[in-house]
């Protein structure tokens, strides 16, 4: 502790139980306080903290803004939390190279704000982008609505400086593409803090589109909305983003924001296209035709940039607004092949109905990334039952050939479900990659990989393990 204080300063090290309470959560529902927290102010301080922990055999959990939804930053096994929140410099915006160099604590939206001044933008736009940090976005390979056209973080991270588990500072990738040697950048992206602590990131920027058009299409039910979305994708035009909102969500957004969406709509598609005027003109015509042909009762387009921004604000903050209906929720992140989307949605809603939960759907329908949200009140409804329903939802997605998570990460939330998707050999291959960086297993123990005991003292963790092992046949 003394050592951590010497490195980071007294004000940036915490060890009292009451202080540690505020690091026991992220935006998911697993809870466990760390044994200490250090908030270093420079790469050198991060390296010194990691070295000190490594020498003491103490595990480390890296953390950004703590907006993760999968328990990736929850500390178990006596681990200390190392927060990168104070590393928040935008080191450089290189307009000619279309590249930004930033520290991990920079909020996602700040990168685009800085890039905008030179006519560029940063594509990944997770709903949490106002607060979630680039470091955390790298850790979970964050996506967001516009991942449909532009891809997730992994498509936009060009280089990473990282403090390795032994405290050494290493650099992977950077300004020139395809540097000689194994390219570990895409391995580190999405590794959820299990390979080291990121201290600097080289990001790709893109030219701002000349024109943006945003459509709101109203459907009488979810099924027709889903079919219209499939028709658009099959039609060959890839929108920049395509989101579905169901009736419950529409009501919530109307209550929380000044959006005036039709409250009776069964579902709504928010479709955005970006490009040259000539491109958007062309695509808009074909998209509108497909929307109407597939059952849209109304198709409107945002009249102004302000209206467009309000729609996106409502969409992106909508998840938190659901707390107005019930104080607790379980937000899913499964992905299914796009062709299976309509039937999977039906099954997911049927599960919620069978369990008696209010379900809200607000998700990236364009790339098959479902976000069903089960709403409940933890004071009266047992969390175990919610997790049981959730496991059933995951199973439907996996049975349809899908994935456990599209952008939130595995963390503590879904690690025990990994054998539903991968064989022991597949998982062992991932372990080989981890061990190449962290042979002692001190970085973020208990995450991603199933079966470990590191976090077994978290009750929700045990419940999920039992469900995962019991339900898979």
């Amino acid at each position: 502790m003394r050592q951590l204080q010497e490195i980071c300063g007294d004000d940036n090290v915490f060890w009292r139980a009451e202080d540690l309470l505020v690091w026991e959560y992220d935006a998911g529902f697993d809870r466990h306080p760390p044994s200490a927290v250090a908030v270093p102010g420079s790469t050198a301080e991060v390296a010194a903290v990691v070295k000190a922990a490594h020498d003491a055999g103490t595990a480390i959990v890296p953390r950004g803004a703590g907006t993760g939804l999968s328990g990736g930053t929850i500390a178990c096994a006596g681990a200390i939390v190392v927060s990168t929140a104070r590393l928040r410099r935008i080191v450089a915006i290189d307009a000619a190279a279309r590249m930004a160099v930033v520290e991990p604590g920079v909020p996602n939206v700040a990168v685009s704000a800085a890039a905008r001044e030179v006519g560029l933008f940063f594509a990944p736009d997770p709903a949490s982008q106002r607060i979630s940090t680039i470091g955390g976005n790298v850790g979970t390979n964050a996506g967001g609505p516009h991942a449909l056209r532009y891809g997730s973080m992994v498509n936009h991270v060009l280089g990473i400086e990282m403090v390795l588990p032994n405290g050494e500072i290493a650099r992977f990738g950077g300004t020139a593409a395809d540097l000689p040697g194994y390219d570990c950048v895409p391995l580190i992206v999405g590794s959820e803090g299990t390979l080291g602590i990121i201290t600097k990131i080289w990001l790709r920027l893109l030219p701002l589109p000349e024109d943006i058009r945003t459509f709101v299409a109203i459907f009488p039910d979810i099924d027709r909305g889903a079919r219209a979305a499939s028709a658009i994708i099959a039609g060959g035009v890839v929108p920049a983003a395509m989101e579905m909102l169901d009736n419950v969500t529409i009501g919530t957004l109307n209550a929380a924001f000044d959006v005036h969406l039709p409250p009776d709509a069964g579902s709504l598609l928010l479709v955005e296209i970006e490009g040259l005027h000539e491109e958007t003109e062309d695509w808009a015509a074909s998209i509108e035709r497909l929307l109407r042909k597939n059952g849209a009762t109304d198709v409107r387009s945002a009249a102004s940039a302000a209206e467009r921004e309000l729609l996106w604000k409502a969409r992106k903050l909508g998840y938190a607004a659901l707390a107005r209906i019930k104080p607790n929720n379980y937000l899913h992140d499964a992905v299914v092949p796009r062709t299976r989307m309509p039937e999977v949605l039906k099954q997911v809603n049927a599960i919620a109905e069978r369990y008696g939960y209010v379900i809200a759907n607000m998700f990236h329908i364009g790339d098959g990334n479902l976000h069903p949200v089960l709403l409940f009140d933890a004071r009266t409804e047992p969390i175990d039952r919610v997790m049981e329903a959730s496991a059933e939802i995951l199973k439907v997605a996996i049975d349809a050939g899908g994935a456990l998570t599209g952008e939130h990460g595995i963390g503590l939330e879904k690690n025990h479900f990994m054998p539903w998707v991968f064989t022991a050999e597949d998982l062992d291959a991932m372990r080989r990659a981890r061990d190449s960086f962290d042979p002692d297993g001190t970085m973020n123990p208990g995450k991603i990989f199933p079966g470990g005991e590191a976090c077994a003292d978290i009750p929700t963790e045990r419940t999920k393990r039992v469900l995962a092992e019991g339900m898979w046949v």
Partner: protein
Amino acid sequence: MRSPLLDTEGLNQCIHCGLCLEACPTYRITRLETESPRGRLHLMSAIASARIDPRESDAAVLHLDRCLACRACEAVCPSGVPYGELIEEARADIARARGTPPLGRLALWSVSRPRVLGALAALLALADRTGLRAGARRILPPRLRRLDALAPPPGRPAYQPVAVEAPRASVALLLGCVMRVSYGDVHTATARVLARLATRVVEVADQGCCGALHAHAGDNAEAVRLAKRNVAAFERSGAEAILANAAGCGAFLKSYAHLLEGDPEWAQRAAAVASRVRDINEYLAVAADGATFGELAMRVTYQDPCHLAHAQGIRAEPRALLGRVHGLELIEMADADVCCGSAGYYNLAQPDYADRLLEEKIDAILATRPDAVVTANPGCMLQLAAGLRARGKSIPVLHVVEVLERAMRSA
């Protein structure tokens, strides 16, 4: 000790999404979860569920004390967590468990007693004239030296009611405590601007301090006492609108309904009075619709008072009013709606944080190279003036109505 006060319903609304973090001034300067709204709500929950005993935990209490109660978090919270109410309830809880700190007690005791405040101001003015104040400054302990630096420049003229012949409307004006003593001229400017719109300010006897500072500091009983006095006084005035030119007071008057909702005798009366409360900017934006305010060639920047922007959602109105002054150039500073660090007596209780916030604020102000800084709350005016003085800048800090009044005089 389980809290009887903390609204667990409100606390439960928080889903820990963290969307409030970047809005929080103390999180922005520290990047620590302990100094964030989400962290503080979690600590409140821990107190409510008896995981933390506020009598034992200095650390938890410190983090809650460091909250400015600026409510910037509340304004951005999609879940609708009533943070402003929760922090007041938590502070009341802690105050009952631990007692109010002496400095806070003194400040609160004095603001609700206009005569005491008046005497203090007169004393300060006298000390200034005799040179005693300059002498005392050298020997004062640091806390009091701070108090001295923040004290308003004495000698501002007292409120002069303005006669209006054939008024088209009559309004009441909350004279308040600090405003009345230190910024009487702002009240006069308010009355003159209203007079130009043929609106008369009726005299409301028996009105007093709104009680906001007491509530923010956890002294709920005194806040309730003051609120009842004001409700009764404004009821009697019969004015169609009750105006406040101090954002913090206006916000608190508007919340009387909530404060007194548990009291069957007062609930309805409080709600009726609260529904008639308007901030002066809010009122003028409607009442002076389309009117222009003369000319004032000046380059200004506008600081959003927290209790105007976050608590009352009034951001566009003061800017629109300033926009109607011919020749006035409004340059937006960065993060205009981030708290300046004034926040009641925060600058006395948490000097370190208040200074850091003020430093950033003054940097943002100076970057706009203004002739004057405009805002709409006495606490902000005091704090910004002190910050500018400390940097050796003679840039005046004006209330929106002062700008309007000066412009109107030129017309």
